């Protein structure tokens, strides 16, 4: 042996670490081949030169070069070797250093996409916004989309392709999979199983179909632990085939929610929130539309229930009885009304009457997690009310191949158990963690599948049990496509080349084809090249699948993959900026046209390039939404198929996806872990939610600890069908009695540093026959307590507790109208009058006087603003222990208050950013003038002047200031450095910080305006919270301009200032919450 083997691994490792500094994983890969590495050490330019010796690596290197040139040739990607930074010899068009570019892409969740615009600073995506042109986003985002940027840069993501834990190159995987596939070829792929999450991607579907063409006996299964399974199966129960239901809340005057959380759950939630909000404004802009009325029954408190005008907490088993009673009241054929316990007698007739009075403009919405029969009845009720075609429309399903998730997974498990599976490919998802407990998707089972391949973002529980693990590229690193709730296709374009050599599902499935090394860019482009004509002609349809289990049905000519485009095409694509410069918008969208195109006919290529650039720029492919279809529901069939509600104990359990970590896929995302859950304000844990009465009957509850943010919660053992987990309890007003809610997504065993040890695993209780609720759970107090970190202790606006402080103002619509214009004292005039009550002189403003108005009527408490703020302003995550000490750093919080009886209170949400007081109590007490009034009225915080006396925070009546008690910010992790917004200071230890009204965005707008010698336009400055808000509840602007939106809102009758009596003269004001109760029910 040569001297290469004399080198010991530890010294190589340390040397590698020392030499490359930032990135050592690539060198680790080469550690597998010591000879090569030895050689590498002796070369002058080792990292790049070595790429040329390896054919795969060379190709990779060329791709990289292409990608980085395409990404404006900047050296921001960490994966590149250390290079000397040289200035541009020629400035790339459209790129101004220091000015971000915005690219349109889309985020798939449960397979369905939401259109996004991603802000990119010199090749680094830093912030996610909604795509205003996209039907499911309308410019807004949810918490998951906001937090996706952190997942992208998560250093705990899987970074290496491994075989049995050993690092392997992609070529090794391709080499290994070939013989297996060859062996399967004569069998028709009978031993091949592919398990994906829900697939709406036309390209992926086309790839799957061609695989199923090649391997006719192979099977494709889909499983999503949350997904839209309830609605899907409900549609099939009612119509005999899968349908996609789309609501229009803008047209609905009266809405009934049957345990639905349409304001927070599902692929169209952002759109629905926007539409719903548009009918909640009784004054101000949009106030001319009549206010809608929302009735809700719910088996676990939801945001939708919180916004409802009338809400009844119902045990899950009672929802069906309620629905039947209502359906029979509405005259749906074949439904017998039965008694419903827990619903006041006058309720159902009143709701029926109200719905019938608004025929064609009412809406019955069935819950996402309700069984098919509820959906079928809801469809029938909408039919009976004449809503179909008005407030509700049906289309073909969005899914490429809609299946019953659980049935599909069960079939797979059966096949594995009977030894039929030789090759199992798991593309995304984490079934070992998330599969229902009774399917026993564990090592015992998986051992029976001979070769297992897992592709995922993380080395998770499933990756552990598979021989091959392939790191998946994050959607911000991938070329792909996805359909929205209405079928609109968006191309997912990467913002950065994969940080950790991740592969996409397309590239994995390409391994089954004859061109295994195709990049996802080529695959997606090739697919759409073939479809362009159909799309333009309006006749495009995604590839069809016949049977639910995924057997390919036809031998259609495989026209989807245009031949010959592979070799000459550039290795990586050119992402298209959507908004070259934010807000100014006066530059051409089509910036880069320097893409060389190889062998293809010139005109067709040019045509396609034009099409391609447009769809990338727009973030969607026009005319791809699904056509509506009409069909009448067959309720009788659904009712027959409906299983009677199971009996078996009087204590019921409800399973729900978690409002922050969802089904567990975001468990390693610190922003989401630390985001207070909407109603409980719990962070870093899940809990068993109980009603106050049930908790006191069981003798369990929570005690406030002494450190500020911690509570000591009694633990209970949940015993359900013989399966047991231990959970801490939380008491939630408005929760139905004798019911316990548990949230999925916690108790992950194999997860990164962030998610480790958080919460308990509710999947251990969940069974495939009743995935969302069931009866017969036993709740046994264990006599032990557990510490939970919450951000808000006191929820009740109870005069007994807090006196008569009017923090959230609310009134009913009739009260509001009775007061009439001018009937109530003009809030704005009072505020103006107060100005003179101060000893300090008035500030004088020349041009701008910033202010914000937050509409409590429309705010749904979804908390997207909180994560948006965190992302925009580089706000650190502090961890459970620090939250327990009351030191969370969120600049913006959403306060939740309850009013009324604990069994069924009214719920109010109040986002609280800095008030930017005109007479700010913080400013006068700062000894070093580190917080001062700006000439545009902002209450500025000067971090480098702050010495950290914390007096300002003590004197802030709103307690919106946050202090860096420790060095909270991660100054070490390289990827996290890339994530930060370069326009915002990264704060260090010992300084105070708080909401700045996104002063960096104001500055940007000011610079633009000054260059053009004009005042800043209304709407030009959009704060991060405002832009994320799906309900458009936050409006920011210039109060000096009487015509600005914010000025108009501040003159509104509903406008009031929080803690007005202190005369702090806050610039952030609120519009009071107006509810629209049914007068008939209100009297009772």
């Amino acid at each position, binding site marked *: 042996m040569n001297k290469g083997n004399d080198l010991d691994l530890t010294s190589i490792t340390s040397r590698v670490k020392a030499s490359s500094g930032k990135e050592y994983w690539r060198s680790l890969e080469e550690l597998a081949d010591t000879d090569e590495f030895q050689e590498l050490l002796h070369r002058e330019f080792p990292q790049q030169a070595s790429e040329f010796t390896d054919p795969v690596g060379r190709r990779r290197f060329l791709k990289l070069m292409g990608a980085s040139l395409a990404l404006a040739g900047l050296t921001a990607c960490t994966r590149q070797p250390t290079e000397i930074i040289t200035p541009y010899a020629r400035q790339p068009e459209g790129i101004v250093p220091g000015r971000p570019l915005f690219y349109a892409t889309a985020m798939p969740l449960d397979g369905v996409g939401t259109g996004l615009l991603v802000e990119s600073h010199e090749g680094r995506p830093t912030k996610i916004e909604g795509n205003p042109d996209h039907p499911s986003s309308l410019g807004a985002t949810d918490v998951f989309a906001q937090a996706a940027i952190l997942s992208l840069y998560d250093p705990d993501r899987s970074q290496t392709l491994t075989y049995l834990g050993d690092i392997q190159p992609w070529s090794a995987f391709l080499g290994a999979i070939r013989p297996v596939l060859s062996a399967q070829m004569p069998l028709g792929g009978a031993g091949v199983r592919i398990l994906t999450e829900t697939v709406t991607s036309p390209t992926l579907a086309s790839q799957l179909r061609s695989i199923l063409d090649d391997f006719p006996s192979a099977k494709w299964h889909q499983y999503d632990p949350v997904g839209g399974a309830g609605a899907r199966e409900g549609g099939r129960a009612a119509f005999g085939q899968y349908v996609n239901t789309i609501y229009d809340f803008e047209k609905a005057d009266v809405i009934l929610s049957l345990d639905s959380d349409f304001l927070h759950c599902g692929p169209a939630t952002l759109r629905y929130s926007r539409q719903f909000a548009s009918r909640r404004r009784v004054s101000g802009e949009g106030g001319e539309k009549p206010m809608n009325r929302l009735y809700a029954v719910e088996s676990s408190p939801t945001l939708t229930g919180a916004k409802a005008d009338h809400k009844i907490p119902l045990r899950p088993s009672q929802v069906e009885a309620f629905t039947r009673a209502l359906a029979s009241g509405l005259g749906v054929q074949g439904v017998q009304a039965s008694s419903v316990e827990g619903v006041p007698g006058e309720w159902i007739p009143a709701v029926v009457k109200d719905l019938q009075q608004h025929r064609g403009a009412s809406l019955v919405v069935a819950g996402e997690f309700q069984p098919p029969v509820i959906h079928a009845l809801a469809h029938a009720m909408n039919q009976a009310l004449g809503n179909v075609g008005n407030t509700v429309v049906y289309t073909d399903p969005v899914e490429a191949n809609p299946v019953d998730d659980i049935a599909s997974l069960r079939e797979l498990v059966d096949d594995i158990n009977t030894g039929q599976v030789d090759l199992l490919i798991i593309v995304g998802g984490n079934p070992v963690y998330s599969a229902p407990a009774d399917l026993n998707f564990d090592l015992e089972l998986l051992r029976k599948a001979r070769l297992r391949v897992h592709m995922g973002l993380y080395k998770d529980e499933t990756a552990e049990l598979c021989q091959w693990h392939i790191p998946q590229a994050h959607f911000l690193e991938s070329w792909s496509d996805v359909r929205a709730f209405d079928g609109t296709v968006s191309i997912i374009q990467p913002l950065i080349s994969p940080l950790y050599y991740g592969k996409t599902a397309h590239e994995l499935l390409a391994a089954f084809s004859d061109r295994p090394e195709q990049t996802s860019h080529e695959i997606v482009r090739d697919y759409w090249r073939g479809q362009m004509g159909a799309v333009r002609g309006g006749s495009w349809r995604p590839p069809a699948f016949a049977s639910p289990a995924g057997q390919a049905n036809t031998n259609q000519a495989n026209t989807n993959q245009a031949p010959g485009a592979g070799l000459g095409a550039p290795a990586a694509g050119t992402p298209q900026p959507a908004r070259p410069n934010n807000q100014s918008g006066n530059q051409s969208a089509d910036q880069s046209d320097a893409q060389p195109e190889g062998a293809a006919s010139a005109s067709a290529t040019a045509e396609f390039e034009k099409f391609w650039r447009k769809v990338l720029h727009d973030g969607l492919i026009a005319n791809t939404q699904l056509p509506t279809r009409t069909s009448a529901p067959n309720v009788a069939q659904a009712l027959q198929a409906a299983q009677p509600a199971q009996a078996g104990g009087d204590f019921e359990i409800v399973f729900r996806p978690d409002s922050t970590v969802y089904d567990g896929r975001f468990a390693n995302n610190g922003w989401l872990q630390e985001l207070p859950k909407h109603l409980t304000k719990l962070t870093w844990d899940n809990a068993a939610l109980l009603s106050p009465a049930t908790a006191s009957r069981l003798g369990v509850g929570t005690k*406030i*600890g*002494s*450190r*500020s*943010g911690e509570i000591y919660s009694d633990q209970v053992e949940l015993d359900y069908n013989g399966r047991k987990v231990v959970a801490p309890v939380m008491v939630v007003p408005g929760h139905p009695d004798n019911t316990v809610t548990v949230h999925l997504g916690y108790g992950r065993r194999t997860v990164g540093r962030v998610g480790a040890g958080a919460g308990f695993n509710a999947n251990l209780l969940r069974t495939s026959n009743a995935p969302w609720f069931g009866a017969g759970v036993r709740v046994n107090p264990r006599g032990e307590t557990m510490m939970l970190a919450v951000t*808000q*202790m*006191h*929820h009740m*606006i109870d005069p007994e*507790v*807090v*006196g*008569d*402080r009017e*923090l959230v103002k609310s009134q009913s619509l009739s009260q509001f109208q009775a007061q009439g214009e001018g009937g109530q004292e003009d809030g704005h005039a009072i505020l103006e009058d107060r100005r003179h009550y101060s000893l300090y002189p008035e500030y004088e403003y020349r041009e701008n006087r910033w202010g914000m108005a937050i509409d409590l009527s429309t705010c749904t408490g979804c908390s997207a603003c909180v994560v948006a703020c965190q992302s925009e302003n580089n706000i650190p995550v502090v961890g459970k222990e*620090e939250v327990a*000490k*009351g*030191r969370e750093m969120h600049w913006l919080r959403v*306060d*939740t*208050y309850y009013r009324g009886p604990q069994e069924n209170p009214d719920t109010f949400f*109040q986002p*609280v950013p800095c008030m930017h007081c005109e007479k700010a*109590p913080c400013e*006068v*007490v*700062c*000894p*070093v*003038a580190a917080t001062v009034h700006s000439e545009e009225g902002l209450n500025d915080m000067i971090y480098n*002047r*702050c*010495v*950290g*006396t*914390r*007096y300002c*925070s*003590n*004197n802030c*009546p*709103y*307690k919106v200031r*946050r*202090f*860096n*008690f*420790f*060095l909270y910010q991660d100054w070490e992790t390289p990827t996290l450095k890339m994530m930060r917004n370069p326009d915002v200071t990264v704060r260090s*230890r*010992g*300084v*105070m910080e708080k909401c700045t009204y996104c002063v960096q965005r104001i500055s940007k707008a000011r610079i633009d305006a000054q260059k053009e010698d004009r005042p800043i336009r209304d709407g030009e400055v959009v704060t991060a919270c405002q832009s994320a808000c799906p309900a458009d509840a936050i409006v920011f602007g210039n109060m000096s301009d009487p015509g600005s939106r914010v000025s108009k809102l501040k003159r509104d009758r509903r406008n009031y200032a*929080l*803690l007005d009596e*202190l005369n*702090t003269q806050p610039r952030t004001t609120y519009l009071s919450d107006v509810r629209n109760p049914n007068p008939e029910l209100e009297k009772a």
Partner: protein
Amino acid sequence: MSKEPHKQDYPHEEVRTAELTKPPVIGPGYTFGSVTDKIASIALSRRTPFGWFVGFGLAFMLVMMLFYTIAYLVFKGVGIWGINIPVGWGFDILNFVWWIGIGHAGTLISAILLLLRQEWRTSINRFAEAMTLFAVACAGLYPLLHTGRPWLAYWLFPYPNTMQLMPQFRSPLIWDVFAVSTYATVSALFWYIGLIPDFATLRDRAKKTAAKKIYGLLAMGWRGSARHWHRYETTYLLLAGLATPLVVSVHTVVSFDFAVAVLPGWHATIFPPYFVAGAIYSGFAMVMTLAIPLRKFYGLEDFITLRHLRNMAKIMLATGLIVAYGYMMEAFMAWYSANTYEEYMIKNRMTGPYWYMYWALILCNVITPQFLWSRRVRHSVPVLFVISIIVNVGMWLERYVIIVTSLHRDFLPSSWGMYSGTFWDWSMYIGTIGLFLALLFLFIRFLPMISIFEMRTILPQAEVNEAEAKEV
């Protein structure tokens, strides 16, 4: 020791009769020489008592703990304490106010009582002033170290800088900086000037060269000439005049830290007088706490007599009543203002999560001093000692109640929280007590803890001579 001054145990009856006529501030039978001997010998004796070593050793260990805490604090950040949002100030400001308050008695005794010609002050003023100084030193640590970035705390001083930035003069913390630094300076000067004649005495009596040199340096060439005495008297009186307003101003300014804020429970006009009274109250309690063991261990019962203790007890009773009035007015104003937040604040103090703190405070600061109405209590040294300790605790509780219970529940229930001191809060607090005691032990050992020359002026001989001189 050449002449052992004779000890005499007074029967109480005798004291009472003496009280009715002319109460003694010094035991009978002393001469100029014996007074000087007795006091100077403590500083000059070769043998340090074993008890001193024990006491100083313990205090020194606490000082080491303090240093360790400070090092860790600077290294990690103020997050090691229990403070949070909403309770941004905890033990730091609490102990700052407590220590500053304790200092007040020293200044009051030395300056105001001097101006008021209360000669009984003479035997306690020296160590009361020392106590002031050490308490201010302990207090001064807190504002510095409680900042998030203590290395930048000098920004609170107005100094010329390239940024042309001055402190923000509307902030009470800036007033604090001036008030406390002035106070520390004047107190130190006052104490040192008062020590000069005694340094000269020690210089003259010291046997060892080193001691001679050091005391000599400190005595600044004092020879006891009439001119020296004249200048001394002038300076001392001037400094007393300067120090007098400080007694009132320092704690007034400290109270502004709270009164200027908008917080219910802080924002009260009664705070300045109530804080000053509280400061004097706690200061006298601390003097008592120190004087009682001192006179016992060093046999100074003749110098620090029952009359001193009795007078201090009376001052404690008076200031205690003012403080009680303050508590009453806080509650009354909360009700009378009909302000929701104020009403809730006092209700929360009395019945909220920290109710036990409030009622313990009432017990310590309002109920306990009422015993001082009784002559028998005032004459019982052990009972006075216990009461003084209770009052010290009570004043600590008062600051805890004011700071923590006001902050932990203010305006918006959504931001309410809790607070409790951590290990590091306590280690810093106990460490400062150690620092205070260590300095005091050093002071007792190396400096005359009672003013020698002033004691001589209150001897009967001094008066007689003066009278005789006038007659002549």
